[in-house]
C-alpha cells in the first residue's frame, strides 16, 4: 500500500459517510424515513454498503495492485503488513487488491440477481394475484415446483450440462432461480400491495444471491477463475488455510459484512414501512447457501 492508496481508502470512507449523511438529510423529511434512521442498524448498514460500493467503483486507486498481478511467485503467502494490507494469497497476489476488485463482481452479482429476481417475482406475483383463477393456480404450482428444487442443485445441474458458463449467464441463472419466494409474497399481498413485503422479498433475493455466488465459486463452479470474486478468493486460499489463514478469512468476512448490512437494512426498511410490526420475521437471509 502506498500513500495514495491509503488516502484513497480514507477518501472512500469519507465518501461513504457523506453519502449516508446526504441520504439521511434527504429522507428524514418523511415519517417513515425518520423511523428508518432511528433503527439502530440502519446507519451502520448503509455505511458498510456505501463503503464497499465506493471502493468497488474506485478500485484502481484503492487497490495497490491489479487483481491478477502475481507479485513474487517464489514467495507467496505473506502475512498482512503495511505493504500488503491483508497479506498475499498462495498465488502471491495481494489479497486486499483482489478483495477490492472482487467487490465489483460480488456486489454486481448481488445487485443484478436481486433486480432480476425482484422484477420477475413481482411481475409473476402481481399477475397471479390480479387474474386469480386458473392463471393464479398455474403460476403458483410453478412456484411450488421452483421452491422444491434447491437453487444450488439447479445451478449445479446447469453447470454440469454446459461446461463453461459465461459470467453473465451465471448471474442470470442466479437471478432466474431466486424469484419464487418473492412472487409468493407479492401475490399474497397484491390487492393491498404493501412495500414492506417487497422489501423482505428483495432483501432475501439479494442476500441469498451473494451467498449463492460465493458457494458456487467456492466449489469451483461459479465465477470462472482467476476472476477475483469473493467466493473464488476463499476457494484459492482454502487449501493453504493452515499456513495463510488470511487469504480465505478476509473475503469471507467481507461477504458476511455485506450480507449482514443487507439484512440489517432490510430489517430497518421493513420496520420503517410498517412500524406496528417492528421486529417480526427473522431470518430469510441465510437461506440460500
Amino acid at each position, binding site marked *: 500500500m502506498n500513500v495514495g492508496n491509503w488516502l484513497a481508502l480514507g477518501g472512500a470512507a469519507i465518501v461513504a459517510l457523506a453519502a449516508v449523511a446526504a441520504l439521511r438529510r434527504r429522507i428524514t423529511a418523511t415519517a417513515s424515513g425518520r423511523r428508518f434512521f432511528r433503527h*439502530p*442498524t440502519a446507519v451502520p448498514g448503509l455505511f458498510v454498503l456505501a463503503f464497499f460500493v465506493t471502493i468497488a467503483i474506485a478500485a484502481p486507486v484503492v487497490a495497490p495492485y491489479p487483481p491478477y498481478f502475481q507479485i513474487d511467485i517464489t514467495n507467496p503467502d505473506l502475512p498482512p503488513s503495511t505493504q500488503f494490507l491483508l497479506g498475499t494469497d498462495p498465488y502471491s497476489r495481494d489479497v486486499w487488491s483482489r478483495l477490492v476488485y472482487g467487490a465489483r463482481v460480488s456486489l454486481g452479482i448481488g445487485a443484478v440477481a436481486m433486480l432480476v429476481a425482484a422484477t420477475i417475482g413481482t411481475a409473476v406475483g402481481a399477475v397471479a394475484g390480479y387474474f386469480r383463477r386458473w392463471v393464479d393456480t398455474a403460476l403458483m*404450482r410453478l412456484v*411450488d*415446483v421452483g*421452491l*422444491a*428444487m*434447491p*437453487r*444450488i*442443485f*439447479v445451478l*449445479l*445441474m446447469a*453447470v*454440469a*450440462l454446459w*461446461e463453461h458458463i459465461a459470467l453473465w449467464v451465471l448471474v442470470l441463472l442466479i437471478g432466474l432461480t431466486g424469484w419464487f419466494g418473492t412472487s409468493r409474497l407479492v401475490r399474497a399481498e397484491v390487492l393491498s400491495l404493501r412495500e414492506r413485503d417487497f422489501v423482505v422479498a428483495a432483501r432475501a433475493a439479494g*442476500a441469498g444471491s451473494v*451467498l449463492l455466488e*460465493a*458457494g458456487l465459486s*467456492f*466449489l*469451483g*463452479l461459479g465465477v470462472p477463475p482467476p476472476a477475483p470474486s469473493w*467466493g473464488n478468493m*476463499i476457494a484459492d486460499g*482454502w487449501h493453504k*488455510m*493452515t499456513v495463510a*489463514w488470511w487469504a*480465505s*478469512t478476509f473475503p*469471507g468476512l467481507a*461477504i*458476511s*459484512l455485506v*450480507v*449482514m448490512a*443487507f*439484512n*440489517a437494512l432490510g430489517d430497518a426498511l421493513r420496520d420503517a414501512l410498517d412500524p406496528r*410490526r417492528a*421486529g*417480526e*420475521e*427473522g*431470518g*430469510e*437471509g*441465510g*437461506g*440460500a*447457501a
Partner: protein
Amino acid sequence: MATWLVRRLAASIAIVFAVVTITFFVIHAAPGSPFLPAESQHLTPETLRRLSTEFGLDRSLPEQYLLFLRNVVRGNLGQSFALRRPVADALADAIPNTFTLALAALIIDFALGLALGIYQAVRAGRVGDVVSGNGALLVNSMPVFWLGLVLLLVFGQWLRWAPVGGLSNPVLCPRLDSPACGLDFLWHLTLPALTLGLVGAASTARYQRAAMLEVIRQDFVRTARAKGLRERRVLLVHALRNALLPVITLFGLAFPFLFTGAVLVETVFAWPGMGRLAVNAIFQRDYPVVTGAALLTSAMVVLGNLIADVLYAVADPRIRVRSETA
C-alpha cells in the same frame, strides 16, 4: 382432516412428478445422447446394452419419457459413468451420511435457535438481546462453508480439539463396529453439524424472537398474568405454545437450507454425503448422479414441507378442529 391430508399428499406427489419431468428434459438437453456421452467408453458394452433397453434410448422421446418415469418409480436412476455403478446405489451409500449430518444440524438449529430466540424476546431491548441479536444476524449472514473453514482452522488445526474431516478415523475406525468407533464418528460429526446448525440456529433465533415478541403483546398473555401465573409459566406455556406455530413453518424451510448447506459443508469437511457426491460428479461430467441427487433432494424438500404442514395442523386447534368438522 383425512381429505385435507389426501389432497395435500396429492399436491406433493404432483410437485415431485413435475421435478422428475424437468429432470428428464434437463438430461436430454445435455450434449450428446443422454446416457451415452463422450465418456461412455468407461462403460462395458454390456452395461450400455442394458441402459439402452432400460431407458429405451433408441425409441421416441415420449416413449423414453415414460420409461424414465417407470425407472424413477422403481428407483432406477441410471448409471454413473465415473463410478461404474448404478446411481441409486451410489446415492444409497451417501444418503445415510447426509441424513445424519442434516439431523444433527437440525437438532442444534432448533435447540439453540429456539432457546436463544426465547431468551432474546424475554430480554428484548436489553444488552443480552442486542448483543446476541447482532451476533445472530452476523452468523446468519456468513457463507456456511466459510464458517466451516474458520471453525476447522480454529478447532481442528490450531486447538486440535476436533478432527479435520472425514467420517471417522481411517486407521482406527475404518468401519463403525465398536462403541469407541461410534464415539469417534460423533466426534467427527461435531464440527460439520455445528457449522450447519449454527447458521440455521441464527436464523431460527431471529424468527423465534419475532414470533415470541408478536405473541407477548397479545391480550391473552395479559390474561395469563392477571390470573396470577408465574412469569415463567406465562412465557413458556401460554406465549411459547403460540409462538411455536410459526416456527413449524420454519421447520419446513429448514430442509432446503440443510440440503443446500450440506453440499458445501460436506465439501469442506470431506464428509462422504450426497452433496459431495454430486459436486465430484460434476467435475467428471457424470450428470446422471447430479440429476439423481437433485431429484432426491427435491423430494426431501417436498416431504419436509408436508411434515411441517401436518405438524402445523396438529399443533393449531384452529386448523385441527376446522378440518375435522369439515
